[in-house]
């Protein structure tokens, strides 16, 4: 039996089932335990990619395109090769096979072949005895370019196909276009009592994990390539290396060391991974490449800028009748996850509110800018911003309280969305109640005086998706357990711990299931030689999928342990309970043995102990093309209330408090869940007020540094007040769902809505710079003075 068979009401942790437990009945789950790697990180002992130094290691650097769009006429690397200390120089022709994280859109090369598509596109790489020599060699490489027309405005890419940024595509410079309609939207809007139609703009932003990308490779004399990389998708990197290097996958080992943050920014295979691998193969030496912060900005894969047009209708009592969206997505220079982004921009909006009818028309285009990709809340933060602001506009027209209009449209739990997605547990109403109560919304909203206000917004997000990036029927998550005679249990997981705590989550589950303390569990993760396949840390899939796989493996092992103990005691296995490092007899509590003794008994009886577990999603999704994209085994729900004030002289917005209520199903560790909620809300507020990832008129990044790309400091960050809502999902591990991405979404619209409450301006174009605030205030004053003048007349 595998975890996939445990779905539905029969799940042993489902409510009303024999295995159902309240939080108090768990031993490990639901408690604020430390992380398995916490103290290693606190003491500086944790090893990140750039902390690896290998004997004889060479250092590699990348030559990048100074032009946004150009053909490469000629590359001459001879002078660089001749420089003392240089061991190898590679260019596009060294690795001509294209790749892409989505198998349908392989349009990237490790190093540019024939043309470059943005300023920063990698062109050549050098391995040398040290970084200084590698840098000197880069300056000796001669590249002749033929400049091409540069596309910086996505509207131009929409209508102009030549010159094609990617040649040989019949769609010209359109990367992906999706039109889907559910029900008769035009009729529904025509019959609505009120309709709001408006434009919104979401700017670009980037992940900016504090750790820059870094990769180290070795190629052993017996032909095994080992890559250590700061990646959040070991398995996809493994596949991509095999494809591009034309090396059988069994001769490649990919390891993710401790990772210094990712947020989606390390979920594509990147140029440096192929380059160090190739350079290691060519030189027979270990090779490291550490990107500078500037290079991380060029690698990007951040949030797509979107121009969004929404039209929503509602009845007099505030019930939505239909929503119509048209979205233009600026994809930058490559596809990355763009196919999925385009679907997500429409598919993920259909909760927590009931949409009777819905239509979206989303088009992603290529431009000559750093490529966009998945950033925390992939593809859905932008439409969520637009729609939640529009919902407040509807509420205003109907003179409804913004929380009330959200309540009235609540879709309910165990339902199906208009686009055919199955929704299971849904604690959104509790989230709304919680932020309403905690923020003292009823006493305070609209009553804080001019300049200060409260705003609300809601959202939903996926807990993994049943779309496995490359089509296959194999498990999406696998786990292996190994038992040592010392009592130590080692968990092998392909899951990528990117700081969210997934390794700790595995340990908590093993502790709970096998009744052993956390310190007797070791987690070995994200090493393709040692660990079973997991698809990686993206789409908020890890807790749900890896957690379920861990439970699956543990229960198989537990069955053996219990059987061995029961045989020894001559009792029924149902009487044996594993708890706190012991096996105990539930009917004769004087009888017990240590778990170590139980392990020995089981090993004697069954041979070497071990177990595997896996998870795969049930069949999900709407019955139409693209209907599985955005289909998740469970959805998380969030509500925020933001308390903000506006300095009307300077236009500066100050956020005081953000109340974040999030339905994570069950909090396996409430402290970690709260950390994800606070960090998500922080990132949303940061995007709303401070951060902007864009290029200037030359197509050059406007400021590729952590000085000019302004991450909020501790002085710029509001107080976050996390409140956890537990809906206990029937299919999540012990009822858990995601917590790492959903709580970002409402930050931006809730802030816009708070500013409206504070000073009566509707901020629809991100980011909310002081200059924009002042402009909106001026416009409002002018509008009001015109209205006053007309009234006087």
């Amino acid at each position: 039996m595998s975890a996939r068979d445990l779905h539905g009401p029969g799940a042993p942790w489902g409510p009303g089932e024999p295995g159902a437990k309240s939080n108090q009945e768990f031993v490990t789950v639901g408690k604020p335990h430390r992380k398995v790697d916490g103290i290693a990180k606190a003491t500086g002992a944790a090893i990140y990619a750039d902390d690896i130094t290998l004997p004889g290691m060479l250092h590699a650097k990348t030559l990048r395109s100074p032009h946004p769009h150009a053909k490469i006429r000629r590359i001459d690397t001879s002078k660089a090769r001749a420089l003392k200390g240089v061991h190898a120089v590679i260019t596009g022709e060294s690795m001509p096979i294209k790749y892409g994280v989505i198998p349908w859109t392989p349009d990237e090369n490790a190093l540019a072949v024939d043309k470059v598509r943005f300023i920063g596109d990698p062109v050549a790489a050098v391995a040398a005895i040290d970084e200084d020599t590698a840098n000197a060699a880069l300056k000796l490489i001669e590249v002749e370019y033929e400049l091409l027309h540069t596309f910086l405005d996505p509207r131009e890419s929409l209508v102009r196909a030549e010159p094609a940024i990617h040649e040989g595509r019949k769609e010209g410079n359109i990367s992906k276009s999706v039109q889907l309609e559910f029900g008769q939207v035009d009729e529904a809007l025509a019959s609505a009592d009120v309709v709001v139609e408006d434009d919104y703009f979401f700017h670009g932003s980037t992940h900016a994990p504090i750790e820059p990308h870094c990769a180290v490779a070795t190629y052993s004399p017996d032909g095994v390539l080992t890559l250590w990389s700061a990646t959040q998708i070991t398995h996809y990197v493994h596949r991509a290396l095999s494809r591009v290097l034309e090396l059988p996958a069994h001769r490649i080992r990919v390891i993710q060391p401790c990772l210094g943050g990712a947020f989606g920014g390390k979920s594509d295979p990147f140029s440096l991974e192929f380059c160090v691998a190739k350079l290691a193969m060519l030189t027979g030496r270990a090779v490291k490449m550490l990107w500078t912060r500037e290079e991380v900005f060029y690698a990007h894969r951040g949030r797509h800028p979107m121009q969004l047009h929404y039209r929503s209708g509602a009845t007099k009592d505030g019930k939505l009748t239909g929503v119509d969206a048209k979205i233009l997505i600026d994809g930058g220079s490559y596809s990355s996850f763009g196919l999925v982004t385009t679907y997500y921009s429409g598919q993920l909006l259909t909760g927590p509110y009931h949409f009777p009818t819905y239509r979206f028309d989303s088009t992603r285009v290529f431009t000559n800018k750093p490529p966009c990709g998945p950033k925390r809340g992939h593809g859905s933060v932008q439409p969520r911003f637009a729609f939640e602001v529009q919902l407040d506009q509807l509420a205003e027209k109907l003179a409804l309280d913004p929380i009330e209009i959200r309540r009235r449209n609540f879709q309910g739990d165990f339902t199906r969305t208009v686009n055919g997605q199955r929704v299971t547990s849904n604690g959104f109403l509790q989230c709304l109640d919680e932020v309403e109560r905690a923020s003292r919304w009823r006493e305070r909203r609209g009553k804080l005086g001019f300049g200060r206000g409260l705003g609300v917004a809601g959202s939903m997000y996926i807990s993994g998706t049943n779309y496995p990036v490359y089509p296959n029927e194999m498990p999406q998550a696998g786990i292996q357990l190994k038992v040592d005679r010392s009592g130590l249990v080692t968990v092998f997981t392909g899951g990528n711990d990117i700081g969210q705590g997934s390794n700790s989550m595995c340990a908590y589950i093993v502790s709970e299931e096998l009744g052993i303390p956390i310190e007797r569990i070791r987690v070995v993760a994200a090493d393709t030689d040692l660990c079973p396949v997991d698809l990686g840390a993206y789409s908020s899939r890890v807790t749900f999928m890896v957690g379920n796989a861990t439970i699956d493996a543990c229960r198989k092992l537990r069955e053996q342990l219990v059987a061995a103990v029961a045989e020894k005691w001559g009792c029924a296995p149902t009487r044996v309970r594993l708890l706190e490092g012991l096996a105990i007899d539930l009917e004769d509590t004087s009888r017990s043995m240590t778990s170590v003794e139980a392990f020995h008994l089981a090993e004697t009886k069954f041979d070497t102990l071990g177990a595997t577990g896996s998870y795969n999603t049930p069949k999900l999704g709407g019955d139409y093309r693209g209907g599985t994209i955005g289909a998740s085994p469970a959805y998380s729900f969030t509500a925020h209330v933001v308390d903000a004030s506006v300095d009307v002289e300077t236009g500066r917005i100050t956020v005081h408090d953000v109340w974040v209520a999030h339905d994570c199903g069950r909090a396996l560790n409430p402290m970690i869940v709260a950390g994800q909620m606070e960090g998500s809300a922080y990132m949303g507020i940061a995007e709303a007020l401070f951060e902007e990832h864009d290029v200037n008129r030359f197509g050059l990044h406007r400021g590729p540094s952590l000085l000019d790309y302004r991450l909020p400091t501790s002085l710029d960050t509001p107080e976050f007040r996390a409140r956890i809502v537990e809906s206990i999902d029937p299919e999540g591990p012990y009822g858990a769902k995601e917590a790492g991405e959903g709580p970002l979404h409402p930050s931006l619209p809730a802030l816009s809505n708070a500013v409206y409450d504070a000073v009566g301006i509707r901020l629809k174009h991100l980011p909310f710079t002081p200059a924009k605030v002042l402009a909106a205030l001026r416009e409002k004053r002018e509008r009001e003075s015109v209205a006053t003048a007309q009234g006087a007349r």
Partner: protein
Amino acid sequence: MLRLPKFELCTPHTVAEAVKLLAECPGAMLVAGGTDLVPNMKHELFTPPRLVSLANVRELRGICTRDDGSLVIGAMTSLADVAASDLVRAHAPALAQACSLIAGPQLRTMGTLGGNVLLDTRCQWYNQTYFWRQALGFCMKKDGEVCHVVKGGKNCVAAASNDSAPTLMTLGAMLDLVGPSGPRSVPIDEFWVADGIYNKQLAKDELLVSIRVPKPPAGHRGAYGKLRDRGSIDFPLLGVAVRLDLDASGAVEHVDIVVTALAAQPKRITKVLELLRGTRPGTPQFDESVAQAAALAHKQCKPLANIPGDADYRREMVPVYVKRTLHAAARGEGPVHHV
């Protein structure tokens, strides 16, 4: 990692030694805290063959008062120490406030007052890596010919971004310099030139020894206002230094307002004394005069799109920050900062 270009490092223990080491090697540069020069060198804006570090020159550190009541601050005194000094806070409150808002905590510990006074001018087209500037085609301040701020511009308009300088101008500070031909002193007002490429009258072989602030009158008030995006780390988008001396009766006797981060050198707002002289803080007349001074400042300041941030917005903030900083000075408060 972004690497420093190669250089030879000298670590003298005396000023005399430092001056000699600087003079004997053409192109050599001094480094104090390194918080401006080191990133600039990583950007290959400077590639000196030799760096003369002043880290071990003890005589350049410290804060004291002289018999004439003037305050002397060694050029190597850290910004954190200047900001925290009771002497400076009492004697030159605007300077202490400005130093407390420079960059972030670690940079204030490393950075020195001398280094901040001598900060290289800044521009969004200049403070970038070699690769970035090369992709741009460079600019006239370094390696290129053209200005990207002013189309067809003949002069570099990179912005003076040193928070301390405008406060020192309002305080009438003197800079004590030493070079191979001996020491000299120059009023900080006369130190600047309107050239973003190199905006100071400091010879390449000269060293800033100390900053001298004359004893202010008993009724001296001072404040500093700083506009920036974040509450820490960032350079100013606008800086406003205010001096307000009150006479024994509490009426304004002297006013000085110097703004910075607009153009290549700090800029004094003229004709404000006429507006404010004789007014008493707390009275409607004072408030009205402050409003007029703010309007005057707006008229006199026309920031360019040299540093990141919306130039129109920075201009719009000039009167707001002038007004707020004047009021803060009058109340004996400040700094004016958004956090």
